[in-house]
């Protein structure tokens, strides 16, 4: 199965969720600099939408992130339909939308990133991650229950 975590860019909230899902970071562990997290904030805004491979989960599932800007429902629906046209069975494709959990700090960080204010953006992203982690942990607990 391929699991796609969605967020605005596919390289912020969804990366955190994907890494938490893979248990590569804990919900309380944020002493590590965000810069060290594989894929975090490593995207040009023109590349939003390209799936990013994060790692392999249990039962050999592949974990990806996908940027969908503010159209998560629309693009998730399109992705489902597109994979159906590819001949992929519904059980092989799963979408986890982390967009509802994107905090205003992360949004502010993305705004600063657009203005090329890197350091300020990073500060806001760090604040955003701290705000999002608890709700992401709850989301992931639900997901694991659904998948098991």
């Amino acid at each position, binding site marked *: 199965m391929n699991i796609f975590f969605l967020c605005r860019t596919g390289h912020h909230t969804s990366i955190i969720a994907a890494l938490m899902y893979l248990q590569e970071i804990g919900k309380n562990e944020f002493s590590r600099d965000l810069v060290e997290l594989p894929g975090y904030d490593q995207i040009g805004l023109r590349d939003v939408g390209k799936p990013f491979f994060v790692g392999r989960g249990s039962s050999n599932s592949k974990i990806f992130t996908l940027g969908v800007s503010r159209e998560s429902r629309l*693009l998730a629906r*399109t*992705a489902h339909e597109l994979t159906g046209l590819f001949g992929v069975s519904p059980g092989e494709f799963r979408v986890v939308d982390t967009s509802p959990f994107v905090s205003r700090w992360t949004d502010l960080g993305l705004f600063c990133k657009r203005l090329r204010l890197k350091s300020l953006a990073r500060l806001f992203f760090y604040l955003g991650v701290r705000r999002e982690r608890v709700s992401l942990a709850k989301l992931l607990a639900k997901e694991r229950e659904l998948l098991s």
Partner: protein
Amino acid sequence: MNIIYHCYGGAHSSVTAAAVHLGWLPTDRIPETEEFQRLPYFDRPVAKDHGRIRLMGKDELGNDIYVLGRRNSARIFENMAQGLLDVYNVPAEEFQFYDVMPYVNWKMMLGGFSSRKIGATFLGRPIITIGTKHSYWKIVTLVHRVKILQLKGGGGNQ
């Protein structure tokens, strides 16, 4: 091969392009108003239909022709579609995506907004039909280009 014409709402320009591709609309004259209004999906989809890939038919070469409304996410959609092709190891030649928005004029936008967004179909539909007629040759040119690329055996998304 599967060809997907996409635009904002999947209700006007992409439907027109697909209809021209399928031979439902002429390529030697501008269609009459009734010919547009007889098209399936022309000025019919609403917001909850956005994101749905709808099959219009098969062309003379056996390719499936689809339309899609993706609001303002053209680039994101194309990035996502190309990325998913890679993830699932689907040959890129099997799916072609064509953005019809560059051929949309302000009349089509105004008519589409009036008809689909605020529900004033009596006002919006005539405006959108006039607008589509004004852009008609550009849409026909796009479809001709698509067909030439198919005959050359290729690819190339827009």
